């Protein structure tokens, strides 16, 4: 395992990350419909990887709990093995020692995969501007949705997952009135 280099700035995700077989076919009627169906399928059953780090993980568990039930939105199970997961919810502060592990788990997830940076610590190191915490997880992995809060409420996490679903389907993240 080599050295881990932190790249400054957010990394490209989705279509900007490069061509996929579907994109390469071009935008004709068949592929756009197929695109829509596949994206609908992907967005309706996002299975997060179990990646609870700190306090946000407790609110993530609360989101799966009986009151705010995340499995209504398709995330029926949290998979312990990253090979079977498609979403990584980085919930909590990422310390220097944990950073290579996080990258390794991200690399082990098969495409397509998405990342939600849950909480202030994952989005921007939160209140911990010091030697021990990686200043935002987007230095290590590309992030799709940043979710502020310390910790964000379970409803906020559900909102993030719903916005991610819209992003996967290619819709605008915020619905504007017609």
């Amino acid at each position, binding site marked *: *395992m*080599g*050295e*881990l*280099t*932190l*790249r*400054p700035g957010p990394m490209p995700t989705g279509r900007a990350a490069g061509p996929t077989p579907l994109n390469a076919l071009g935008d004709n009627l068949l592929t756009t419909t197929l695109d829509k169906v596949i994206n609908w399928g992907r967005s309706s059953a996002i299975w997060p990887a*179990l*990646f*609870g*780090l*700190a*306090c946000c*993980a*407790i*609110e993530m*568990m*609360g989101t799966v*709990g*009986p*009151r705010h039930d995340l499995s209504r939105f398709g995330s029926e199970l949290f998979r*312990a093995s*990253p090979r079977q997961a498609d979403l990584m919810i980085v919930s*909590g*502060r990422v*310390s*220097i*020692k*944990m*950073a*290579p*592990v996080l990258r390794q*788990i991200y690399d082990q997830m098969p495409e397509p995969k998405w990342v939600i940076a849950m909480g202030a610590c994952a989005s921007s190191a939160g*209140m*911990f501007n*010091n*030697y*021990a*915490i990686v200043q935002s997880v987007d*230095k290590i992995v590309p992030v799709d949705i940043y979710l502020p809060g*310390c*910790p964000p*409420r379970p409803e906020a996490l559900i909102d993030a997952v719903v916005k991610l679903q819209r992003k996967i389907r290619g819709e605008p993240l915020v619905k504007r009135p017609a």
Partner: protein
Amino acid sequence: MAETRIAQEPFGPGPAQEPFGPENEPPTDWIELNMGPQHPSTHGVLRVRLKLDGEVVRDADPDVGYLHTGFEKSFEEKTYTQGITFSDRMDYLAPPINNVGFVMSVEKLIGVEVPPRAQAIRVMMMELARIASHELWLGTAGLDLGVYSGFFYAWRDRELVLDLNELYSGVRMMTSFTRVGGVAWDLPDGWIDQLQRFIDVMPARIDDFEAMLTDNPIWHQRLQGIGALSAEDAIRTGVTGPMLRASGVDYDVRKAFPYCGYEQYDFQVPLGTNGDCFDRYRVRVQEMRESLKILQQVVDTLPSGPWITDDRKVALPPRSELSKSMESVIHHFRLVSEGFKGPVGDVYAFVESPRGELGFYLVSDGTNKPYRMKVRPPSLCNLQPLKKLVQGVLLADVIAIMGSMDFILGDVDR
């Protein structure tokens, strides 16, 4: 800042100091299994390197530090009041208890009296946090052992406590409700009624949990006789809290060194006999019931009066005074911009968190910031004997033992 390089943490045997050293070189048919930092049952980011002989564990080396946040360094850079917000995030299952411990050390240093109503409010928030933490422990430790429905029972009850937290402080978890000299706000109208409803509903819910688990033969087989720690060993290895009490040692900070008015309330300290995982479970469930008793007593005897000290050098004046008195404005300005200064010296204040004795050792050099704030984490002390406890047990029992220790990595690593 430019590209930062992080040296890869070696997952192999590691450089230089190898705990499985030449003097106890294991046989070559042992496997080294890495129970890595990302694991559903490690309750956080703990890494345990296990040496397995088939299914039996021969040695274990817990590797902590995956959640090291530099709290103690951060405390040195913030004033006493700013540090309260940081203290929540250490033991993040029971943040109110961290808050109280932190301000108690500052109050001990400066010598500030806390009014009775503030003490009662602190006790209520702390006991609610204790119930929430034990519920969460039950839910997750059960989840590790296959009790999937227990997780949902636990969260149903925990949400009630989080609602009460939110009604009082505005935040579900990280309440930061204490200030040096008292608490930040008075109880809102109707909070006591909501608390009373909680107290009325909870005993039946704890009974539900017990009915599911206590006489369950699978639960017995998974927990009884596993991870037993005798009383002498428990004291020698320095464990604390329910782990210590399950081994039969009668030591609870609330009884031995009462704080915040705990001496007025009548409650028992549950003790175990064998010190195994099952006893720890019994102790924690009983502690939840005792917490409900304490809560009822506080509600019945809640004193009225101020909720923070009126020593203006330490606590903010009420806003109504600001328009009337110049002195109040000056105090307010001083406290908000600079904070208050403490005398030179060092103190140790400690509270009973759901994991054990949580202590704050504060060294002050006379400025408005702590010079050194050392946190004595109960979870670190509880995690230490893991190496000893898992020798000779099956791999599945390691999960049960780690679950019964109830450590939280935010506390271990700080």
